[in-house]
């Protein structure tokens, strides 16, 4: 047998999930010293993961990372299998029999729950649903959101919460030349929302927004950012955090923006986006649908940079007709792959999947991206993360199984099962069609939001 990774015996790898981490893992493999073939398997007909369906439509520059992924797709040895779900159309064990190695890069596709009464009342949603809906993700196409009330509440103070708040804040004119889906634009055009409350468990110095996202709230045409100035008083530990020249840089910049929000008392805009700190929702109430959320005041205690919020018993009620929770994401388990339930990730050591958090390495299966680390970090973080995983894989080459058929075997198996997979040239036809549908509206593209529509293009 020739050595794995030579022209005669290329390393055959399946990468599961065509988001940033899937593309960066593929790139690291195809640009490595050894001969490799990579099949990138994606459950949607479209590639690019959250860059397409998460990143906000009014942040088009970030989507230019797609240009890098297109170059990866043009590398020799690349093959795309879109519209194929691992765990349904093909099982993990089957992939292990077909490939020398499998890398799971399937993201963190569900939201953490608040675990409070009333969470599932109509009108109480996850940020994922809303983001997926306005970004044209087929899974969320049929969701409905009621924008006929005056107040919307967002629980969480990270960048996803900021995206949700900003999309609710903007006028249709501010959004209509983005790639936001038409159904969302039409629904948001009717929005009666006047107040958007963004509620955080801890204080302003601990909010997870990046400064850039926060700064955008100062520049909205239609919406005034507001904070009650007493909310910006910092305890001693928080003052220490903000003063720290290294770890406190972002917090200090954020505080300066919060101060501006508190100063700008001018209330002439149609909408107000109010930042509220040190509060946790303890109950959502309403008759058949959400009517109000009960918040408990928190106080912070502990050392700088590890302060915890605990309830004071003091509560207040916020009347609202819509609520989104955005308090973190979890991976979705795939049957046959070890899963760490409390963290919501695939347990691993430097990308090698292990049999449970402290378990032994399971040979031949790897992971990268959000499903490896949990839902933190931005697009580029996944590159360093995927590179580490591929380094681990390269170190294991001599222990990988021999004789794996790769691409042809997967194609055959899918065909036998009647699974219509989509290759990259086919995706490019769909892509071109989206772009031309957007043109007359002055949009970069009008996405197809249903699988059937995409398949129809291919005839």
């Amino acid at each position, binding site marked *: 047998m020739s050595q794995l990774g030579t022209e005669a015996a290329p390393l055959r790898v399946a990468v599961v999930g065509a988001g940033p981490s899937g593309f960066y893992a593929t790139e690291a493999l195809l640009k490595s010293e050894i001969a490799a073939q990579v099949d990138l398997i994606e459950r949607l007909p479209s590639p690019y993961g959250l860059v397409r369906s998460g990143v906000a439509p009014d942040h088009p520059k*970030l989507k230019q990372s797609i240009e890098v992924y297109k170059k990866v797709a043009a590398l020799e040895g690349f093959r795309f299998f879109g519209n194929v779900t691992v765990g349904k159309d093909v099982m993990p064990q089957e992939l292990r029999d077909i490939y020398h190695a499998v890398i799971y890069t399937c993201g963190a596709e569900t939201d953490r729950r608040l675990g409070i009464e009333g969470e599932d009342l109509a009108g109480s949603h996850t940020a994922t649903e809303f983001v997926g809906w306005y970004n044209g993700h087929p899974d969320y196409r049929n969701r409905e959101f009621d924008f006929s009330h005056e107040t919307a509440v967002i629980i969480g103070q990270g960048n996803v919460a900021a995206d949700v708040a900003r999309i609710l804040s903007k006028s249709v004119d501010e959004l209509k030349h983005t790639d936001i889906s038409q159904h969302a634009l039409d629904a948001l055009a009717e929005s009666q929302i006047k107040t958007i409350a963004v509620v955080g468990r801890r204080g302003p110095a601990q909010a997870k927004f990046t400064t850039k996202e926060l700064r955008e709230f100062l520049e909205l045409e239609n919406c005034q950012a507001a904070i009650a100035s007493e909310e910006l008083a910092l305890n001693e530990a928080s003052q220490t955090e903000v003063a720290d020249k290294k770890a406190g*840089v972002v917090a200090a*910049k954020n505080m300066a923006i919060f101060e501006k929000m508190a100063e700008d008392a001018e209330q002439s805009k149609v909408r107000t986006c109010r930042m509220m700190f040190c509060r946790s929702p303890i109950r959502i109430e309403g008759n058949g649908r959400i009517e109000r959320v009960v918040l408990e005041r928190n106080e912070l205690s502990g050392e700088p940079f590890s302060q915890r919020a605990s309830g004071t018993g003091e509560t207040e009620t916020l009347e609202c007709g819509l609520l989104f929770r955005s308090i973190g994401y979890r991976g979705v388990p795939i049957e046959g792959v070890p899963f760490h339930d409390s963290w919501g990730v695939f347990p691993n050591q430097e990308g090698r999947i292990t049999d449970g958090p402290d378990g032994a390495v399971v040979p031949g299966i790897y992971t990268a991206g959000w499903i490896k680390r949990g839902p933190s*970090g*931005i*697009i580029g*973080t996944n590159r360093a993360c995927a590179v580490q995983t591929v380094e681990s894989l390269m170190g294991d080459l001599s222990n990988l199984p021999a004789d794996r058929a790769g691409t042809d075997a997967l194609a055959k198996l899918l065909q036998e099962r009647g699974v219509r997979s989509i290759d990259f040239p086919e995706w490019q036809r769909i892509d071109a069609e989206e772009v031309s549908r957007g043109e007359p509206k002055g949009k970069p593209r009008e996405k197809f939001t249903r699988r059937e529509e995409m398949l129809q293009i291919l005839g």
Partner: protein
Amino acid sequence: MTTIVTDNCKGCRYTDCVTVCPVACFHYDDEMLYIDPDVCIDCSACIPECPVQAIYEEDDLPEDKQEWLEINAEKAPELPVIEEKMEPLPGADERKAALGF
């Protein structure tokens, strides 16, 4: 808007920043790194990675460092791209200490 490498990078060239750049827009010479503003997508991933806080968003660029905006734009396109971590320049740790980090 763009993102800019400034003179704190000079003489140390720790390259933690390049490993997280999603679009490979860092370029380098013997002294330091530069960002190509036409390729950079302003994702900010590199900023917290830099151990000497050499990288700024344009909006945050201090008055006395404004010249670096142009220097990055001019130099980057002519220099080779750096995609992977390199050894820091000799004396990098001393330089870092001297900058107070």
